[in-house]
């Protein structure tokens, strides 16, 4: 399957014959992202190490806090998908309260919040982050390859991106109570429902939102069709996939059980209860990385690693329970001609299918009167621990808490989507570097291509901190004795 990767990963890193190329995207003030390419004597990429610091200090941040504070506090982990952490924590603590089945109003308000989050995050990812690369080409002028450039050349696309994002934010505001730092989900349910006026205000826009989401899928399909060789091969590698699926096997971002498939699409695990995730997933530690490397326990670290996120979800489910997105899923599956699609650039296509599904789901929910119900909270027999799993925009997100009898959190464990995708990101970068690095010169082209591969997964680089004056992306080439022979710097 993916055996060649581990042969290289285990290559002797201390060998004096390896040159080291360091790409240093220090894009967050305390987060440190870095790509190291280890080359052999012939200048060929032998090993890739992607270093990302994220969620450092999380356990200390949470331990000793009353459990009811946790769904609000965890939003400060991530400035891009705080709602995902908010809901995953609330779901975990539902179990602690014994609230194994929420009221219809609570579940639907939470679902609306989550699908609003998926919509706004996917819109941000595609229009702000990835569309500049895709619309202008990876090798185009860097100064143009950004959202401002897209707005200049494709103003309608950029405008749709902004308005989709804005709509998703408004869904979050109405369900969570605030635009940021919302409090809507609480252990056992929610603290508010939507009134008729709020639903009508969203309904007034949702039809345009569905239309623009559909156009976005068509745009990605056109891009694939224009250069299938590139889109199908760029950074492509085979792996297992993992995601939640609903009880009936449908795509479900909010709840369900875990399912894994192998690289050929055969189901490895299905119906796995989320409360038992530790029996399914183990995490390997490597000395060179802060981030762990999750793998399916039954397959071991060498063969058990897997992709998560849109590309995994769209192919792991049996169907998408909304008509427009399901039609697009079928077309996507047909593109694979009977095989799983593994191309990293296909993440964007799958992501837009999911955005369309989120828009359709929001539309259906807004017509559901349960959204305006008044029974918001439930509870049951108190437990000492709970696991909450959710499909966040970038992939499966696991929150696990233990709560003592004094109601204080005694321990917690998180596996976030960027951690699940750790090994796949390394692999995608290695493939791209092997293809585009040559000689001793570090080119902007190489840097661009590595960035494009990373963006397909959109790792979280300790994103909850924002500060001006960030360091730019740096690219450095060292010879066999560690001397810098080339250096390149670009904005990040």
């Amino acid at each position: 399957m993916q055996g060649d990767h581990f042969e290289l990963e285990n290559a002797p890193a201390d060998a004096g014959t390896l040159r080291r190329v360091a790409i240093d995207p220090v894009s967050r003030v305390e987060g440190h992202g870095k790509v190291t390419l280890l080359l052999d004597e012939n200048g060929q990429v032998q090993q890739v190490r992607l270093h990302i610091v994220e969620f450092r200090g999380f356990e200390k941040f949470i331990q000793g806090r009353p459990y009811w504070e946790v769904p609000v506090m965890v939003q400060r982990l991530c400035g891009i998908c705080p709602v995902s952490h908010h809901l995953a924590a609330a779901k975990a603590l539902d179990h602690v309260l014994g609230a194994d089945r929420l009221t219809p109003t609570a579940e639907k308000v939470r679902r609306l919040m989550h699908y609003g989050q998926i919509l706004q995050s996917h819109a941000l990812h595609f229009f702000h982050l990835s569309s500049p690369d895709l619309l202008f080409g990876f090798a185009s002028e860097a100064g143009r390859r950004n959202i401002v450039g897209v707005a200049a050349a494709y103003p309608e696309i950029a405008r749709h991106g902004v308005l989709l994002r804005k709509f998703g934010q408004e869904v979050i505001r109405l369900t969570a109570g605030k635009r940021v730092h919302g409090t809507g989900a609480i252990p056992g349910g929610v603290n508010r429902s939507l009134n008729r006026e709020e639903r009508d205000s969203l309904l007034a826009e949702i039809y345009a939102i569905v239309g623009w989401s559909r156009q976005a899928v068509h745009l990605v399909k056109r891009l694939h069709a224009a250069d299938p060789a590139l889109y199908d091969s760029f950074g492509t590698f085979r792996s297992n996939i993992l995601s939640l699926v609903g009880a009936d096997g449908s795509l479900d971002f909010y709840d369900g059980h875990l399912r894994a498939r192998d690289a050929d699409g055969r189901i490895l695990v299905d119906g796995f209860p989320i409360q038992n995730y530790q029996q399914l997933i183990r995490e390997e530690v490597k000395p060179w990385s802060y981030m762990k490397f999750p793998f399916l326990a039954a397959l071991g670290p060498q063969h058990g690693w897997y992709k998560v996120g849109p590309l995994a979800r769209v192919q792991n489910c049996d169907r998408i329970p909304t008509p427009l997105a399901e039609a697009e899923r079928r077309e996507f599956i047909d593109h694979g001609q009977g095989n799983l699609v593994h191309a990293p650039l296909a993440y964007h296509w799958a992501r837009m299918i999911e955005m369309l599904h989120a828009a359709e789901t929001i539309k259906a929910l807004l017509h559901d009167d349960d959204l305006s119900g008044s029974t918001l909270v439930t509870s049951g027999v108190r437990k000492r621990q709970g696991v909450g799993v959710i499909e966040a925009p970038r992939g499966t997100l696991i929150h696990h808490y233990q709560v003592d009898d004094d109601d204080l959190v005694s321990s917690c464990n998180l596996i976030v989507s960027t951690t699940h995708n750790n090994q796949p990101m390394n692999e995608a970068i290695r493939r791209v570097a092997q293809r585009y690095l040559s000689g001793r010169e570090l080119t902007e082209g190489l840097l661009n291509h590595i960035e494009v591969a990373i963006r397909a997964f959109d790792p979280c680089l300790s994103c909850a901190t924002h500060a001006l004056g960030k360091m730019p992306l740096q690219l450095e080439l060292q010879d066999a004795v560690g001397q810098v022979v080339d250096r390149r710097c670009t904005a990040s």
Partner: protein
Amino acid sequence: MSPAPVLVLACGNPSRGDDALGPLLLDRLQAWLEVTGEAAGSELLGDFQLQIEHALDLVGRRLVLFIDAGRQTPAPFVFRQAQAVDGAPYSTHALPPEALLAVLPRIDHQTAPPAFVLCVRGERFELGEGLSAAASCHADRAFELLQELFRTPEIDCWRSLLSG
């Protein structure tokens, strides 16, 4: 309803050490404006970081002020005017004020209003940490500037207070 003529957009995470400078100064400014009876003329918004949809918050404003922490900023702060920059660098998770100003006319056919950046030097940004002593001093100095700015929220006055 017309938006307030002055928009203050502060970025930062209150739970990450000196990244809290933006929201902290926003709260202090809000309280001060309420005491002085000037709150109606300004809208104050806080968020983790700037994103493209914030361009729509700029519509119809006479003046905009961005407040943020900065790691390499000369202490205690830098106050500068921001100009729209096409092709400003972008990153995965945030947009600089200059790019936001450039996005607005592209998507809404509106000219971006005059905008200023108050960037306050931060030192430590770890999750769960409070404000550092140094950043607290910088915040006090920055708040003195904010009071001066909002006594006379006019572009000429603000320009006269730009850093060096």
